[in-house]
């Protein structure tokens, strides 16, 4: 059975100029132990889809879906209580803006502790040990000292690692990682990706990786979904996507990699004269 199944998910937002459709009939599913990469340009609704799954859409958002199921539980009709049990423990998410997602008024240690307290039955001492262990696993130098720091005393990448540590603290069954490594250099990025893949191997965790970095996709994913303007353009396993991209938008995306630069200008998606028809 699939871990998460999304069928025909549509999300609209009320805005001043009326309804804005951010996501238009998107379907995909993740199996336990699988890595699904979602790629697509900024504003294509990648984050919105995941926020809808987490039940965290802003108040002006409306969603419809034929199916939105986690482990067979219907996320659409589930009671708020049951939902709270699942979200944060079984499904957890690494949010896109690490610094904005941490509370500036509390130390990092206090915030990790809070998460552990909420979802586990560990004692105070155990929680502290676990927090240090978590920070070590995401490659935080001097993890014991880092616990006492406030978010503004850390570098961008360090904040991002704290977020990751918090997300994996409760060994979730499904981890949604929204651009988890944008602020990290490649060595730490590698360490984090390896950590996530290890977790996924060990515990059969499902992983949804939202990214715009095709190289990260190539390094981690089993299957790839390409999104463009709120619609799913293409779904394929990694190899066939890189070998023979079907959709013009996917092709454009692959050729915008700086290592594919020809001459001294980088090709951009607009160089491909993609109209809406071209992308359909």
């Amino acid at each position, binding site marked *: 059975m699939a871990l998460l199944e999304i069928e025909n998910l549509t999300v609209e937002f009320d805005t001043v100029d009326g309804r804005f459709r951010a996501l238009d009939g998107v379907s995909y599913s993740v199996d336990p132990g699988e890595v699904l990469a979602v790629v*697509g*340009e*900024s*504003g294509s609704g990648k984050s919105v889809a995941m926020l809808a799954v987490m039940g965290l859409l802003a108040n002006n958002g409306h969603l419809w879906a034929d199916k939105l199921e986690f482990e067979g539980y219907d996320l659409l009709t589930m009671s708020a209580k049951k939902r709270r049990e699942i979200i944060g423990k079984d499904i957890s998410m690494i949010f896109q*803006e690490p*610094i*904005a997602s941490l509370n500036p008024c509390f130390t990092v240690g206090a915030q990790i502790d809070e998460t552990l307290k909420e979802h586990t039955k560990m004692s105070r001492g155990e929680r502290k040990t676990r927090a240090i262990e978590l920070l070590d696993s995401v490659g935080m*130098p001097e993890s014991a*000292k880092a616990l*006492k*720091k406030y978010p503004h*005393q*850390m*570098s*961008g*990448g*360090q904040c*991002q*690692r704290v977020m990751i540590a918090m997300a994996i603290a409760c060994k979730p069954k499904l981890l949604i990682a929204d*651009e988890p490594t*944008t*602020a*990290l*250099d*490649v*060595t*730490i*990025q*590698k360490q984090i*990706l390896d950590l996530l893949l290890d977790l996924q191997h060990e515990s059969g965790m499902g992983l949804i990786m939202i990214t*715009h*970095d*095709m*190289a*990260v*996709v*190539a*390094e981690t994913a089993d299957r790839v979904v390409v999104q463009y303007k709120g619609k799913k353009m293409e779904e394929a396993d*990694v*190899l066939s996507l*890189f*070998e023979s991209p079907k959709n013009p938008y996917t092709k*454009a*995306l*692959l050729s*915008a*990699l*700086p*290592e594919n*630069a020809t001459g*001294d*200008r*980088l*090709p*951009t*998606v*607009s160089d491909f004269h993609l109209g809406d028809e071209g992308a359909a």
Partner: protein
Amino acid sequence: MADDIILEARNLVREYRTKEGIFGKEHVNRALKGISFSLERGKTLAVVGESGCGKSTLARILTLIDPATSGELLIEGNPIDISKEKLSKDMRSKVQIVFQNPYGSLNPRQRVGDVLTEPLMINTTMSPAERRDKAMEMLVKVGLGPEHFNRYPHMFSGGQRQRIAIGRALVLNPSLLILDEPVSALDLSVQAQILNLLADLQDEFNLTYLFISHDLSVVRYIADKVMVMYFGEVVEYGTRDEVFGNPQHEYTQTLFNATPQADIAHIKARLAASN
């Protein structure tokens, strides 16, 4: 030629002191441990390094927001120490910065027009009409239109916001632009647009860039010289071809090996290994 050196850093050190509570003991964290380099006019120096190795700290010192704990900073030959004397408006305009996160680097309550005219209002004696003209001109330079002048940042996509941020940095006619991971939050095609824009602007205004990044493929594309930092120290400093062709330090080699690759052979190897 000496006058071609726009900025020189000699042995910069930066320490952060943190205290636990009111009576706790003080910790000293040396974020920069003696950094020296120089920047040539019209060239791009790329700074790469591990997360937390002090790149943003260096950027803050070079843009004269935070003082260095010790060491010397010379801009166009003049030594600058902001902890001792107040900065002249002229100097303030020389170095500007563009940040990583296009969503956090614009004030949500400020119209694009005000974003671009505020620096002029503070640092120059232009009249409001002149400021407006200059801002309009800048807006067009970075690929937006006059119709965007009165909009708020939340109406723009990440790429457009980064263009606005670049416009704000350039409106004071700086000679040096610090780019702290300007493209890492952007998707590939927007990233390409911004890199192209930066290249065009460099040609037009003879700008010098200090480009902080962790994306080696971008660095290879844009840099003339490369500096690799590791735990607050410079471990490698040379031209792009030297560094990429023949990395000396162990960390640089690790860095290259860790770079994810998007070629098909690589994917095949990985899939084979995991089965």
